[in-house]
């Protein structure tokens, strides 16, 4: 990574941590902040898809689909930004899907490693099972009981994880030595 990329990674990690802290302190307003962030992310995604089309995908056979995807994403982001009533449910389903899917992949990874001779009881299995359990807990508390604060805490955890990974990445050694 270049110095600029390292600085960018650290700054993004730092602000993500800060955001998690704010949400943790003010969970009652958190669901709307989270919804706003996700809508903003969709805007950014749509915009990036369009940039991607003009810088790369226009050279690709069938690349126009990227342009359409960008336009549709921007359209959905506009719709979401004007319909706050649905936003908490969208956030909840997003989080449940995120934790459930990543947990499922971790469990599969643990079994794949076992098939290749490693022990089944690994950090992957533990994080996988915990993530799946957390997704179930979010579903019960968020969707069935209707407690939105738990969802905010769930989102905080995701932010903290992402921030820590970014900060750790900043300090990772990535260069490879070459001997002529």
């Amino acid at each position, binding site marked *: 990574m270049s110095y600029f990329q390292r600085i960018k990674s650290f700054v993004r990690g730092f602000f993500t941590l800060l955001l998690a802290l704010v949400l943790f302190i003010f969970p009652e307003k958190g669901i709307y902040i989270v919804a706003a962030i996700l809508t903003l992310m969709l805007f950014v995604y749509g915009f990036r898809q369009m940039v991607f089309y003009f810088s790369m995908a226009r*050279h690709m056979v069938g690349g126009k689909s990227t342009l359409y995807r960008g336009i549709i994403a921007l359209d959905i982001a506009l719709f979401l930004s004007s319909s706050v009533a649905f936003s908490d449910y969208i956030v909840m389903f997003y989080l449940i899907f995120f934790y459930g899917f990543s947990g499922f992949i971790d469990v599969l990874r643990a079994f794949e490693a076992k098939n290749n001779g490693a022990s089944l009881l690994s950090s992957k299995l533990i994080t996988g099972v915990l993530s799946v359990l957390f997704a179930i807990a979010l579903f019960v508390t968020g969707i069935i009981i209707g407690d939105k604060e738990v969802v905010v805490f769930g989102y905080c955890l995701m932010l903290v994880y992402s921030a820590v990974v970014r900060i750790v990445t900043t300090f990772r050694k990535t260069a490879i030595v070459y001997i002529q």
Partner: protein
Amino acid sequence: MNADFHYYATYCAAILAGYSHSESLDISYSDRFVDSCTRTFLDIIGGEPAAATTQLNLELMDARTDIPGLQDITRIWASFHFLPKDLQAEPGNRCSKRYKNKFRLICGTNGELLKSTVTLAKGKSLQAVGIAMHALSDTWAHTYFAGTPSLVINNPYNRFFEIMPDGSERKITFRHSASQPDDLEKSIYTSSLYSGSENSIMNLGHGRAGHLPDYSFIRYKYLPAWGNYEETVKDNPSDYKHAFCQMIYAMKYLRSEQGEFELKRYDFDAIAEIEDEIDRIITTRQLDSSGDWKALGEKLSGQKIEPFDIEKYQAEYINASKENKDNTFLGRFIIASLAQKSMVTNKIYTSGNKLAGYSVDYKKRGFRGIKAYRKLVKEDKK
């Protein structure tokens, strides 16, 4: 290419190049082992994770696609399975630097990196020879795909036609069920799922074209993502025969005292007496040609070829003392793997492309970066 070619065909080529039975077994084992040396395996034996030469499907699913993650994936796949043909290649149209960098990693035959790969193995271990043969033969199979995740390079248009031996064409259908074997009778093949994300691991290498590039018998035509709507024909029987004869030439070069490895040279003379047999094996419609290549290998050497066993050298490495690990079979493989990665990363980096990461010239700047590569310094001092 599949295990049949990387193990048994490489054994045959090594025998024809003049190696003994046991040397040929070591070379073919190392060639085949490139497809098995994952981080999971290296974790089990306590080896250097940086020496991984491939990734399991779920390792890939789990891999981060941030900058260091993508560089790590590219180092593995571009170094061992998709050697770029031309690091200065120019796409036809005006395009961004980002697109150009991906385009320049497209794998192809007889590139300068192939020459560097074979030359790197000269005077080194048999494991290094095996790794070089893996990279060489894969340049023939994996032509037109890049060893980095890329939608715009590796996602061909979804219209493939198989060209049958009688010249007729048959539409190829792709499905995404990894548990089901490819159906050769109906031309139904498994491929990775579509993902619209440029850096998704679904768009790594030839995943979107399934195992088509790995079957020696198949001829097919399609529109590569980068091909500007021009139809491309891939003739695997011809390519696999060239790969086999180039391996013989390369291994003869590696065994010799002097000379220079020349691109576009194939030792067709060496197979003159068995050409019909090789043609038959290569063109037979089957998922696995191991049995046929094995029989040919045993006929050539007069020796029994044991099947590939991933655990064969595991205990030797695990039980060796710390000082002796580098002298074991797997220890030598790990050193050869690190050297290949280091060389390919350097060539890509010095071409102005950072997709495989940063390379530090030891002679100019001393040791920097990932610690595992200290082994190369130690090796150099020897």
